[in-house]
Structure formats: C-alpha cells, structure tokens
C-alpha cells in the first residue's frame, strides 16, 4: 500500500491537476505548487546523486578496479569544484557589503567558480560537442552507401541538400534563370522545396504519432494502467 498505492495516487492527482489547470485557470496556483514540489524533490535527490557518485568512485579506487585513476580524477574534480563553490573562493564582495566576501555571488565574473566554468568546463564541453562533426561524417558514410533503391534516393537527396547549402551549389546551377519554372531547379531552390515539402510532411507524420503516444502513455499513468515507473508489476 505505502510503496505502490500512495505514490500512484500522488502521481495521478498531480497529473490530473496539471491537465485540468491547462483548461481551468482556477487551478493554476495548484499547478505552480506541483512544479515547486517537483523542484524540492529534485533538489533532495541531487544530494543523493552526489552521495552515490562518491560511493561508486571511492569503491572503484579502493578496489583498484580497471580505470580507477579516472575515478581519482573525478573525485578530485568533484571535491575541488564543490569547495570552490561552497567557500566562494575568489568571489568579489557586493557593493552593499564591501567587507563581507561571502555575500558575493559565487557565479559572478571573476570568481573561482566562474574561472572553473569558463576555462575548464566550457572548453571540455565544447571539445566533446565538436567531435560530433567527425561522427556525422562516419555515420553519413555508412548511411549513404548506394546498396539499394531507397539508399540511392537517400544519397541523391542528401547530395542535393548538401550542395544547395553551399556556394558551390549556387554556382553549379547559376545558368538557370532566377524567374519562371526552371528557377525551381536551381539547387538552392530545390533544397528549400525538399526541406519544406517531403521533409516537413514526414516530420509531421512522426510528430502526430509522437503526440498521440505521449498523450496515451500519460493517460495510462494517470489511470494507473502503466505502473512501470513504480518498479513495474501489477
């Protein structure tokens, strides 16, 4: 009862309030409250996450399991950034309280936390993100191999889109007039047509399916038909 029924009733009540508040403005304050509850829960769970991170990596280091050195780096980074943020290292005091360093914003420009974010975290994140370019190339190479009719169509379309998005595409079909029916075959116009028509049509079909699927799953949860989020079972 305590483990299943009460959480299920809470989830149902919160979900129904959220839906009804969309149509009945009277329930809007309740909707805001539900969002605040979720934020409180997430904040508490964040402590749980920090504790779990420490446990997992300390255990790995203690057992000297493969890759334990990475865990050491993770732990060192976690503890040092936490200390920089909590003790507000390098924070400039506010104008209103010039003698109280702890009154300053730990994220303000020039603070230790800001330096870590700007010069360590942001470049590392950008590095991982930039690797995406290489992954796109390798995935495209595999996807565009002309092994059957569908793949040939895909390859042809991709070729038109790629060319149409570059100066080379404009240059290649520059001989076609800018007005009239033939203008539709200029690569830059063909690209726009492909993106606005077949691509949008396909996308919308998927979007309608997704929207109905989302509503259906939500409804199953609200009706208590789907209880997988409580650990499965009936």
């Amino acid at each position, binding site marked *: 009862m305590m483990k299943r029924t009460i959480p299920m009733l809470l989830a149902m009540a919160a979900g129904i309030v959220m839906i009804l508040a969309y149509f009945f403005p009277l329930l809007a304050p309740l909707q805001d409250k539900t969002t605040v509850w979720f934020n409180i829960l*997430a904040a508490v769970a964040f402590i749980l996450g920090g504790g*779990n991170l420490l446990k997992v990596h300390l255990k790995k280091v203690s057992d000297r399991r493969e890759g334990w050195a990475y865990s050491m780096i993770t732990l060192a980074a976690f503890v040092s950034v936490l200390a920089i943020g909590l003790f507000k290292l390098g924070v400039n005091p506010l104008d209103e309280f010039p003698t109280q360093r702890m009154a300053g914003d730990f994220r303000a420009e020039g603070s230790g936390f800001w330096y870590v974010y700007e010069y360590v975290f942001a470049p590392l994140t950008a590095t991982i993100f930039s690797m995406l370019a290489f992954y796109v190339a390798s*995935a495209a190479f595999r996807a565009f191999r002309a092994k059957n009719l569908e793949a040939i169509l895909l390859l042809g379309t991709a070729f038109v889109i790629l060319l149409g998005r570059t100066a080379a595409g404009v240059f290649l079909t520059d001989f076609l007039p800018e007005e009239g029916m033939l203008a539709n075959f200029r690569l830059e116009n063909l690209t726009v047509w492909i993106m606005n028509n077949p691509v949008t049509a396909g996308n919308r079909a998927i979007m309608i399916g997704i929207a109905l699927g*989302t509503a259906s799953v939500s409804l199953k949860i609200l009706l208590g038909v789907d209880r997988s989020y409580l650990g499965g079972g009936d």
Partner: protein
Amino acid sequence: MPCFSLTSLLLVAEEAAAAAETVESTGLLNTDRLPLLGVTVFFVVAVVFWISVARSGGQIKVREIAGLKAIEEAVGRATEMGRSVLFVPGIQDVSEIQTIAGITVLSKVAKTAAEYDAKVEVPVARTLVMVTARETVQEAFLAAGRPDAYNEDLIYYVTDEQFGYVAYLSGMMVREKPAACIYMGCFYAESLILAETGNSIGAIQVAGTAMPAQLPFFVAACDYTLIGEEFYAASAYLSESPAELGSLKGQDLAKVLAFGLIGLGALFATATQFVPSLQGAFDFFTGTLLG
C-alpha cells in the same frame, strides 16, 4: 504552533484571493482552449473504452516491433560473449514522459538479463531516474526469480551535464566494450556520439526516442530503432496486458480523428481557392479549432 496555523491561514487566504482575481480576469474556463478540451475528452473516452473492451476479453492485435524482439537477442548475445548490456535512459528527468517509457523497456531488459544471468549496467544523468531505475530493475529480478542476482551498484549516477555524461559513457564503452547498447529515452546532440561509439565497438544496438531530430542519427548508427510512436507502444507490447493493449487501440482512434481533420483541412484549403467566401470558415477551422 498557533503562530504557524495563523500564518498558514493567512497564506491560504492570500492565495484564495489571488485565485479569485485570476478567475475574474480570465474566467472559469479558458475558452480559447475549448476545442482542444473536446479533442482531449474524445481521446480519453476512446482510450478508456478500448481498455474496458480489452479487459472484458476483446482480442487486440498488435503488429510485431522488430526493435523490441531484438532486445532478447541482444541480451542473449551479451550472455554468450560474457560481456555486459549497457542501458541508457536518456538525459532527462522522470518528469519527461520519454524517460518513463524508457524505464518500461528497462524493466523488460532487466528481466531478460536476470533470466540469462547477464549483467545490465545503467549509468544515469539524473538522480531521480537512478532511484526509479533501481526500483524497476529490482522488481524485474524479483519477477524473474533471481532477487539474489540484483546489484544496485550497477545503476548509478554520473552527472547532470550533457557532455560530461557523454564523455563518461563513450569512455566506458570503449574500455569495457559492452556487447549490447540500448538507448531508450530523451536524447539530444549526444545521440550520434553514443550510437557511433557503440557501432565502433561492434555492439548490437537498439534505440528508441521521440525526438524527431535525433531519429536519423539512431537509424544510421543502430541496428534497430523504435521511432516515436513505436517507442511509446513498447510498454503495451512488452507487458502484453489487455489494458495496455487497449490503450493502443484508443490511440489509433485518435489517429483516425487527426487524419480526418487533416483531410478536411486540405479540402477546405483547396475549396477556398475556388470559393473565396469560405475564407472566414477556413480561418476559424485552422485558427480556432486547430490553433
């Protein structure tokens, strides 16, 4: 305590006054959303009707979903190779419906893994997802009759940061070479990085997401992909419970309604080209009814 009660009463009174003001300014029912309310009611009735039909013994057929059939094959392969199964439930919290749909698939993966005695590793990007996934996997191991094999340390929190999470997963995949990688949930730019890394280590990969922009990446790099709607249908398909299968039928009815409205809209748009006086009705249809 009386002080607390008085404060609470004052707060409640303030909120009630604020709510009353809101009602005065916006009305009891948001009439702009009335057509959507109609569609919602239709959808709810359709789903509830079909659930009750299914519960009373009505037969409901669901087409085979290759990606879900492949999960058993993937776990079996991992068992044969003596390697782990990596399950990634996306990078969003449990408040995201895709994460819940992913957790449903995790339940099936964990149950199959428990039966095969395979190891399922679930690194997560949100702590609430970790708690939910632990409950789900524990329940699945119990259902499979292997509660002793459950190890909660295999479901752990990594980081909330998108690319920090991706860096961890990519490194872990390259080092530990899981035999199967299953991605089910909400993904953004990390989808291709994960899928390509999994592809490079030769893992069998199954993905499912409702993010249209990420679907092409998964299709290009994974062996099987559950596209949007299929991903949401996974729960019903895997559970085989009549109530859940009934909800799929209700969903189909709503699809028929959507199809009808699209057809009607297309006819209306064409007709306005020939009969300009229909423009007002067409604007009402697209702007008010569908807007």
